[in-house]
């Protein structure tokens, strides 16, 4: 159903050179553009009088004041807690559900239209329905995040498990591995790379849902903070929220990639061996 898609920019290894200077220069290549862009923002906005684009320096000072001194970090904590709970529940259901569908063929055929519908349904559209069902509160946030993050994980789990070489199952049978041991030792690790792809897609959806639901109906959270600031026309305050949210998204993404690399080290290593 879904094809494994790498979601990172392909890595280009720098050409090997003996001289130390060139090696340092080549290590600096990935850095110059981000630095240049930030510098451009800094200097272009330094004398900005536009109400919408305050100087970067002011935004940074305001960020420190709002989020550290005035205690807006509580918003980030409540956002993250909801995201984490919803994401854990959703992805757990996704992995278990995907495994069940893989095991029980008739269930898979029968549930296919429903799962496909829920997968392609743009999840934010469910927000008003969730408000109607759960009211306004943390339960609703968690439920929405969980509901949205089930489907990418579930479909990728199913796909990964179906893609495992059947010869391996014959080997497992010959080794007289029981059902559960086959599942833990063969099926789960075999599908792991694609499950990871699904988990990452779920995380992206989860972050979007977290912010949307805070923006539409909530009393706390980063999305609430940003929209509140916008309603008060406190542009600088709003920018701090945007900055924190962008930072949070980036950090979560990098944490995920780091964890994925650690967990799937055996997979990358075996692939590197295979290609050389």
């Amino acid at each position, binding site marked *: 159903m879904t094809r494994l898609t790498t979601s990172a920019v392909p890595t280009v290894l720098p050409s090997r050179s003996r001289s130390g200077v060139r090696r340092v220069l080549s290590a600096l290549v990935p850095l110059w553009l981000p630095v240049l862009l930030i510098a451009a923002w800094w200097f272009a906005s330094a004398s900005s009088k536009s109400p919408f684009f305050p100087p970067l320096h002011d935004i940074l000072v305001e960020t420190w004041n709002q989020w550290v001194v005035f205690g807006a970090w509580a918003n980030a904590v409540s956002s993250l807690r909801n995201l984490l709970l919803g994401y854990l529940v959703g992805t757990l259901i996704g992995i278990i559900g995907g495994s069940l569908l893989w095991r029980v063929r008739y269930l898979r055929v029968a549930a296919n239209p429903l799962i496909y519908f829920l997968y392609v349904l743009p999840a934010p559209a469910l927000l008003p329905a969730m408000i109607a069902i759960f009211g306004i509160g943390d339960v609703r946030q968690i439920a929405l995040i969980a509901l949205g993050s089930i489907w990418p994980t579930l479909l990728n789990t199913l796909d990964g498990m179906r893609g495992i070489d059947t010869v391996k199952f014959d080997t497992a049978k010959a080794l007289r591995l029981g059902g559960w041991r086959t599942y833990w030792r063969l099926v789960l690790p075999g599908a792991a790379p694609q499950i990871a792809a699904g988990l990452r897609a779920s995380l992206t959806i989860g972050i979007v849902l977290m912010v949307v639901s805070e923006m539409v109906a909530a009393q706390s959270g980063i999305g609430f903070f940003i929209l509140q600031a916008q309603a008060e026309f406190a542009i600088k305050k709003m920018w701090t929220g945007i900055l924190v*949210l962008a930072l949070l998204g980036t950090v979560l993404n990098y944490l995920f990639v780091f964890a994925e690399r650690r967990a799937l080290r055996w997979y990358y290593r075996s692939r590197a061996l295979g290609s050389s």
Partner: protein
Amino acid sequence: MRKAAGSWLTWTLPILTIGALLVAWQVATASGSISPTQFPTMTDTMEALAREVRTGRIWPAVGATMLGWAIGMVITIVLGLLVGTALAFSAFAQRSAAPVIEIFKAIPAIAILPIVILLAGSTLPMKVFLIFFAAFWPFVIQVIYGVRSMDPIVLDTARALGVRGVRRFLTVSIPSASPYLVTGMRIASAQALILSIVAELVGGAPGIGRNILLAQNTGVEAYPTMYAYIIVAGVLGVLLTGAFFLMEKKVMHWHESQRNIRDSNKAGAA
């Protein structure tokens, strides 16, 4: 795969499930085990859907959502192709741009929604910009992969035949990268639809998302309408994603990557 044995089941089972689900929905809501203030009955929802179609109120909403989606996708695809191809041909450019693309991809597009609303209001340009911001980065990554996957012999042949510039871009680069491009478009399209709905829900631009929220705000008697529009959003998703899946399967059957995929599938199934 035991295809022949269960082939009639692969058709009847899904239909049976949908039927059973609809009946279960009706029974659960009509019998009162789920309060109608939380969930309307199935027949009421279908009635509301039929009413929206009959009165024609549904079409401006669908049109507005689709228009934003389409413009956003066109801009994403054109710019993505240009930037992606340019980056793929130079290792230096690619290494320089990679962290920037990764960071922008990790920034949730909704983060910039409030500033875009302030600048552009609840308008079509606001929606289009958000869609572009969400769809561009994943697409450009697929373009880079696609162009890099190009067979070097094909590239050399093109060079020997003196095909270069725009012509090489159109007749060599794009066709050989096409499987990645279509996959990228499918990912971008899903992102675009989500952000389209978000821009309508949060930003108040006209479209399906705003109608869902309006129905929810109207109160319990409008809940069937709300679910009707949620169903419409899902159907839109099915149609768009389905179209790109079909494109992936049918148009790209000649491409090497597809041959390999099918061969390995066969090997896996054998």
